[in-house]
């Protein structure tokens, strides 16, 4: 059997149950943290990243319902799968938990094979969920890069992480980055060339050159008789 991998938060007010669960999950290869109360569990969830939560329903202070409701209302915690632990006589509560967003349930006393299967399934779901979330996030980065190209604020490093993917999205990011770079270079070249089209004349120097010519005797003579010099219709017959 392959080892499970991931970080589990076990929440149970019963210390024996808690330890039992912790030990059997650790034997499966998982990293486990335990909390004896819903309040402590919510604190840990906000402090650290967990892949799955194993949650007892009945707890003295903050119970499982409240933990579930709080998690599902929090966008950062909403996607963490929750497996509810229940006694066989608590089916109403299980149904309520599932309605609140729990993914699965586990009856006491735990059957180790069933425990492993349920946790494994939850983790697999979480992994797929994470992949999908990452994919959507990275598609968003590509879309943002496209907007950046349009606004002229694209930088090559923007797609670095996405471009590292080996799938079609990674390829899109690499091609996009390369094309954006080419477009940018072409634009820069054009701008340099358009710069050359700017007509800037040193008027003082031009005037100086004009004066050097117009102040010569030759030019003055030429200017004074220009009307006689240029042929008119009467010159030709």
């Amino acid at each position, binding site marked *: 059997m392959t080892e499970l991998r991931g970080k589990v938060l076990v929440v149970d007010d019963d210390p024996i149950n808690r330890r039992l669960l912790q030990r059997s999950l650790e034997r499966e290869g998982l990293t486990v943290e335990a909390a004896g109360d819903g309040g402590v569990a919510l604190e840990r969830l906000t402090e650290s990243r967990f892949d799955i939560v194993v949650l007892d329903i009945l707890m003295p202070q903050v119970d499982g319902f409240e933990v579930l409701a709080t998690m599902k209302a929090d966008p950062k915690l909403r996607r963490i799968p929750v497996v509810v632990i229940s006694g066989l006589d608590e089916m109403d509560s299980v149904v309520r938990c599932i309605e609140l967003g729990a993914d699965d349930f586990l009856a006491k006393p735990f059957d180790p094979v069933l425990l492993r299967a349920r946790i494994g399934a939850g983790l697999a779901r979480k992994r797929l969920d994470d992949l999908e979330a990452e994919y959507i996030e990275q598609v968003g980065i590509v879309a943002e890069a496209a907007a950046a190209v349009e606004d002229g604020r694209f930088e090559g490093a923007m797609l670095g992480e996405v471009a590292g993917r080996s799938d079609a999205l990674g390829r899109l990011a690499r091609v996009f980055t390369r094309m954006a770079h080419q477009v940018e270079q072409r634009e820069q*070249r*054009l701008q340099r*060339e*358009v710069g*050359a*089209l700017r*007509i*800037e*004349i*040193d*008027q003082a*120097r*031009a005037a100086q*050159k*004009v004066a050097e*010519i*117009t102040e010569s005797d*030759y*030019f003055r003579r*030429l*200017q004074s008789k*220009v*009307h006689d*010099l*240029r*042929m*008119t*219709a009467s*010159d*030709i017959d």
Partner: protein
Amino acid sequence: MSRIVAIHSFRGGTGKSNTAANVASLLAADGRRVGVVDLDILSPGIHVLFGLDQSGMGHTLNTYLWGKCELTEAAHDVTPAQLNGGGRIWLVPSSVQPHDIARVIHDGYDVAMLNDGFRALIKDLALDVLILDTHPGLNEETLLSLALSHTLAIVLRPDHQDYEGTQVTVTIARKLKVPNILLVVNKTPEVFDSDEVRERVATTYDCPVAAVLPHSDDLMVLSSSGIFSLRYPAHPMTERYRQIAAALMR
């Protein structure tokens, strides 16, 4: 009436002679009698475009300036074979002989003779138009050419030095009351928008732009042998030369 057209650029290498040769050919293709004088005495070249072999050719502009012939005797009929509509082209070349060029530099010549020569040429050959392919810069014979011309076409490249030189030339030409001054922007990089170039240049000098001609290596190769507009009459470049020819006669 006949008119004198000076084609000038402040600096060399703008494509001035090429423009002059193409425009002369298109005017002749329309049936006009066209004279062309190579006033670029220090570095003659337009005869090559008209296929005139100077070895043992006889009289040149230099011969006239030294009083050894009439200017009309130095005019060679270079009408291209393609023209059959009655138009003609006569070219007065400048000598390419090193000693002739050296003598001009050393002794100079009587610039005033040009005026008499041009009038005689126009009359003797019944020219509709006389095109003066001037020497770059604004020396005495170029100033005289401007004073004689009815139309001045200034060929420039879109670069800083040409912009300034063009400013000087336009100012001088206005002081000499040249009735029709127009600009030809040549060797324009193809990435430039030619309408934009036309507008900016026209606004800068308050002067019409007859045409904006693109630069391309292909054109350089094609235009190095013979008259481009006669060899490639349907080429877009020829259309631009037509625009210049029309503007010169306006």
